[in-house]
């Protein structure tokens, strides 16, 4: 087990607590850099989606994980970013400009959503953000002069510095990963400075935050704005990746996927956003793979058990019918979310920390280390 011996206040705010982290993250960076030369173009395309989902994950973590304001409206912020980018691109605005404008405009709208949200808490805030998402969806479908309504908008490839960056090129992959890394760095910086601490303070006790001189309303609005702005940037990349956007892509289901990102990844650390994004993006191809292969596997297995060929074919057919049933995917998603909430509320990153601690302490790991305690001390709160 490694003990950090701190000799300077600098040690508390360093990006990497000790040299080991630099090696780990350095290796990861190298792996990300060589990925396009090693992996298939399909996997690189999936990695681009992982990066985009992780950006939204970071945004949601800042709002939900750190400030404690739940949101089911992030698909709408993503849509605003995507449509802003697509609209400005039509008028020949260069990529860096409309990329940043998408972020800024979405941030402004996020702040505007933040204001009415000041008076709402918990489940009511969730309902408010859902209704915001529906409003945006409706506007996108009706405001045809700008959004082309349900026909959707075609997004051209990025043109920058005289070259184009096609959506399946390694350059686009580097762009997305680069944006993700910068946003993670910004989020880490934010969380180790006064604003980040104010966010966490609001999450844990608004009353105490107020009495420490934190303007709770201002910081909630700030949190909404930052979160929305980051999602807007992701929206711009998302639009380019899909090359075609229409209102039905930004539905409640997408917002739920984003919530899944942080729930499954672990809603207490930025690592969670990335781990959760990998899980959520990869689960879809994985389920498709299962859907295609499971009926055959079950049929073979029943043959092994002694069923006749006709019987096996029948079994294969019925299993395939179940596997391709409508809504099965949604049900599986639901089960995954429930399983994580029940059995691993700290998400994948929490599980990783536990495994790490187990090996660090090896024979001495106590099972109760991460046990949640029930404490009855907050009986009298003036919210």
């Amino acid at each position: 087990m490694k003990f950090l011996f701190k000799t300077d206040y600098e040690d508390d705010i360093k990006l990497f607590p000790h040299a080991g982290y630099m090696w780990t993250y350095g290796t990861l960076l190298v792996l990300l850099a060589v990925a396009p030369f090693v992996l298939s173009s399909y996997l690189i395309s999936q990695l681009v989606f992982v990066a985009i989902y992780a950006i939204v994950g970071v945004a949601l973590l800042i709002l939900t994980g750190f400030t404690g304001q739940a949101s089911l409206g992030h698909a709408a912020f993503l849509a605003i970013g995507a449509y802003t980018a697509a609209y400005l691109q039509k008028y020949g605005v260069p990529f860096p400009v409309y990329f940043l404008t998408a972020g800024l405009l979405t941030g402004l709208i996020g702040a505007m959503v933040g204001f009415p949200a000041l008076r709402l808490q918990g489940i009511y805030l969730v309902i408010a953000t859902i209704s915001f998402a529906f409003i945006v969806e409706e506007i996108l479908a009706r405001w045809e002069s700008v959004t082309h309504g349900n026909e959707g908008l075609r997004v051209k490839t990025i043109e920058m510095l005289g070259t184009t960056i096609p959506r399946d090129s390694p350059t686009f992959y580097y762009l997305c990963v680069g944006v993700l890394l910068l946003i993670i760095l910004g989020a880490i910086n934010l969380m180790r400075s006064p604003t980040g601490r104010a966010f966490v303070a609001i999450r844990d006790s608004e009353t105490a935050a107020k009495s420490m001189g934190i303007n709770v309303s201002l910081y909630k609005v700030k949190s909404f704005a930052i979160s929305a702005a980051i999602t807007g940037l992701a929206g711009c990349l998302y639009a380019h990746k899909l090359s075609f956007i229409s209102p039905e892509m930004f539905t409640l289901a997408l917002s739920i996927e984003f919530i899944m990102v942080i729930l499954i990844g672990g809603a207490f650390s930025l690592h969670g956003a990335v781990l959760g994004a990998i899980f959520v993006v990869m689960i879809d191809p994985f389920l498709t793979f299962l859907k295609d292969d499971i009926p055959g596997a079950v049929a073979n297995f029943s043959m092994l058990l002694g069923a006749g060929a006709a019987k096996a074919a029948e079994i294969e057919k019925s299993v395939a019918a179940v596997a391709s049933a409508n809504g099965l995917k949604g049900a599986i998603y639901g089960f995954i979310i429930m399983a994580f909430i029940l059995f691993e509320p700290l998400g994948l990153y929490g599980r990783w920390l536990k495994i790490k601690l187990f090996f660090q302490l090896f024979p001495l790991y106590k099972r109760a280390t991460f046990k949640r305690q029930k404490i009855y001390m907050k009986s009298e709160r003036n919210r």
Partner: protein
Amino acid sequence: MSYFRAENLSLHFGGLKAVDSVSFAIEKGEILSIIGPNGAGKSSIFNLISRLYNPTTGKLYFEDRDITDDPPYDIAKLGIARTFQNIELFENASVLSNLLVGRHRHCTSSLWQEILFMPSVRRDEKMHRHKVEQVIEFLDLEPYRDRVISGLPYGVRKVVELARALCTEPKLILLDEPSSGLNVEETTDMSFWIRDMKSELGITVLMVEHDMSLVSRVSDRVIALNYGKVLAMGQPAEVQSHPDVVAAYLGT
């Protein structure tokens, strides 16, 4: 004029008069205790001063400035810090970050500077960290710096909350039952710290307390309340032997 004044302060919840035209003044550098049976309106007065409640009538003055209509976060900026009866710490954060939140009123960096973590932010962070370290040393919290609050025992949390209030570098500190839930030894420590806060840090103290031995050990003056009204005010011994106060505690 007095350092802090409450004039005709009232707080009514419908027909219930939690605080009923209470007036008192605190002089700079004194320790004033408010005592009274449960439900006498002591904590309500604290919530009025820290502006979590709006007074029905009455005015509050701090350093001759009317603070009756200031929002709660401005109260802390003026230099009034408080602790809570039922500990309100940031449970999922470490002791260190709890204390750093206490430094919030001294933070000047803008959002962009923070996102880029400019040298000025880094310098400020170190300065805040240094101030926090002084408070940690003052209250002997060294063993707990990096511990998360939810894993700490009650007695330590109580001290951490006091530390967080001290990190704001207050001029006036409001302590809501600083000794509740503490054992005899911890209460003795608390009484030393309260005296030291006054003599070493020059902080004026207003506290609500039930433990009479602590009250008489540390207070310069005592106010006794019952049913939202002031029963007696004066030296600790005087107030404790006042017939109305005895009647309020023991019944007539």
